[in-house]
């Protein structure tokens, strides 16, 4: 056995299990529709991986990841709308609700290259400016949570108000193609699922490497004892901002891939409620673990869909109960069940109790 397998056997097995589940099991047992649905959940899982990093490791209770998900999603949606309209064309809804002209700030997204860069760069830039300003001033805990949530609310209201340029409450939908590929073709729908699954695996790998790195240690240290880290000569604001920016990029990519798979993005997908929904999945899965956040997001999304199919209107209650039960009996999420089984504490990955109160 090579050393890496010996030291990280469980983690590598986890990666193998996720890969087999997404690339082999799911495509062979699910219908095209269900596979697309799972693809949407995989996009939520990407947001969750980012929240795991920012909240689980970094202690930043971010209640506004919907903003970054939305930025990525709207950038992609704008490109797809322009692409469908053809060179120089005007998207259908602008002719209906606007003055029939494409606003200047839409124009750059005609380019596929700019769009792909912007999907990551815009969330990163917004998160950097915001994170740097907030963390420099030592805003944390509940204040940071409230601020991030207010941002999500403001973002949704902004989108709704701009009927002519963002589609308002309708959002953007009715896409026909994704970089030239026909979205109604089942083969392309499967391809999108594989792209999303691949992206999720890459993000998990990135998170794993981050957690093992010196930076990962530093992030946990900032979460647990920010003042001590400062005395050691590090800048906690920078450490936190980096994690917040990475989380935003992951959410942006998740949003961008969500649009072609779901075929729609609307303010309802980016506001306060979905932002909290992302967080609940992470808490249920286990925020400080590697696979917990993604797994939690997938489980919660799957449960929401299947429960609302059998018991419409009951989902919200169930979500609440699940959240209470997990927080009360499994404060470290479902992923901690295996740790309980082994009866072995894993100090580096678990938040210290005294900080937990301040961050939640």
């Amino acid at each position, binding site marked *: 056995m090579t050393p890496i397998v010996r030291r990280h056997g469980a983690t590598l097995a986890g990666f193998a299990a996720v890969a087999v589940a997404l690339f082999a099991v799911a495509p062979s047992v699910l219908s095209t529709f269900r596979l697309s*649905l799972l693809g949407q959940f995989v996009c939520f899982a990407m947001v969750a991986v980012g929240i795991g990093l920012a909240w689980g490791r970094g202690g930043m209770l971010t209640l506004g990841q919907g903003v970054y998900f939305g930025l990525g999603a709207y950038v992609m949606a704008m490109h797809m709308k322009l692409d469908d309209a053809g060179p120089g064309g005007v998207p259908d809804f602008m002719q209906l609700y606007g003055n029939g002209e494409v606003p200047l700030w839409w124009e750059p997204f005609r380019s596929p290259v700019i769009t792909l860069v912007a999907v990551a760069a815009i969330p990163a830039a917004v998160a950097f400016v915001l994170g740097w300003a907030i963390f420099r001033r030592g805003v944390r805990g509940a204040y940071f949570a409230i601020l991030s949530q207010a941002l999500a609310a403001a973002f949704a209201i902004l989108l709704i*108000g701009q*009927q002519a340029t963002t589609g*308002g409450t309708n959002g953007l939908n*009715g896409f026909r193609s994704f970089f030239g590929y026909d979205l109604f073709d089942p083969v392309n729908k499967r391809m999108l699922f594989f792209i999303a699954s691949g992206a999720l695996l890459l993000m998990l790998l990135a998170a794993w490497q981050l957690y093992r790195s010196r930076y990962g240690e530093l992030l946990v240290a900032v979460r647990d004892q920010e003042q001590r880290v400062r005395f050691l000569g590090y800048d906690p604001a920078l450490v936190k901002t980096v994690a917040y920016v990475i989380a935003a990029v992951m959410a942006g990519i998740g949003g961008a891939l969500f649009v072609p798979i779901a*075929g*729609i993005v*609307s303010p309802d997908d980016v506001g306060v409620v979905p932002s909290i929904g992302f967080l609940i999945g992470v808490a249920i899965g286990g925020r400080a673990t590697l696979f917990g956040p993604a797994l939690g997001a997938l489980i919660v999304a799957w449960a929401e869909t299947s429960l609302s199919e059998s018991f*419409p209107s009951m989902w919200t209650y169930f979500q609440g109960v699940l959240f209470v039960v997990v927080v009360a009996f499994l404060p470290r999420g479902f992923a901690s069940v295996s740790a309980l089984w082994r009866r072995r504490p894993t100090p580096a990955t678990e938040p210290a109790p005294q900080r937990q109160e301040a961050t939640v």
Partner: protein
Amino acid sequence: MDTSSDSVKVGFVNSLSGTMAISEQTVHDSLQLAAEQINDSGGVLGKQLDVVSEDGASEPTVFAEKAGKLISDDCVAAVFGGWTSSSRKAMLPVVEGANSLLFYPVQYEGLEASDNIFYTGATTNQQIVPALDYLAEQGTESLFLVGSDYVFPRTANKIIKQYAKAHDIEIAGEQYAPLGHTDFSTISNKVKAAGADAVFNTLNGDSNVAFFKEYRNSGLTADDMPVMSVSIAEEEVDGIGLRNLEGQLTAWNYYQTVDTPENEKFVEAFRSEYGDDRVTSDPMEAAYTSLYLWKEMVEKAESFATDDVREAAGGVTFDAPEGTVTVNGDNQHIAKTSRVGAVGDDGLIHTVWDSGEPIEPDPFLESYDWAEGLSAG
């Protein structure tokens, strides 16, 4: 779609949770009633209807997902439901992509005609335009526009302003409130200060409660400045409060008080199913009618296949509670009688004017000179 067994699946997608649940539950109830009645009388082409219900959860994305599920997984013959324009817009690419059918039962802002959607509520020339005609006939020379900030009021007001320009009606003001907004003191003061002859109200949901309360508090009455509403039906009267609403005007195609034998049966059946305290409203009636229209189309086509049903749709009629309705084969809307009503002291709405005969649907207002260039900007 599986049509080999002795039943056929149809899908209902209404918001049973979220902000729209209070309205859409009523539509769901009346669709269920229609399905039961059709099954009791022998089904469609001899097949019993097997209803699959999904919750749209008041979110466009969920509507798109659930419509996809009904079509791809359940293989339903047709989907019925939706309320907000955003829910319809979200389902449109889904039904078009799968070449399935959606029956949409609510009045809307027009400017749309999908080959895969049948619109059984009013389009603008069957609700808003007749309401404006009525106001103009009553000598209204200035209008104040109040609406929620989303697609329907914005589009409706665009049409209203164009109409006003052509008919020498002055627009004394135009105010929008965010959906769910409940502080209307500023807006109601502006309305009062503007001193228009009438108010055209496209507010939706809870905002109406606050608006009408404030309207009455500021001393405005239905006599000196009537409010014409297009989103308030029987269902909403109780919530807004009868004393705030008595005498105010609404525009629809159906009221519970409409005097037809079919309506008498409909109201009676609905009440015996769901209780005597329940009222019937325009969207409920349009939903009920939509299922029967689909039945007529299928039986005329002798097929459940989308293309056959669409082919057969033109000219299909049904003696609906609102009166006889006819499907327009070109734009897939239906010809409906337009009615202006006033809220009475019994909490119901009573017709004060009707168009006499069904008005042909014209979603793009092509037959109105004043509406030229509307959809382009």
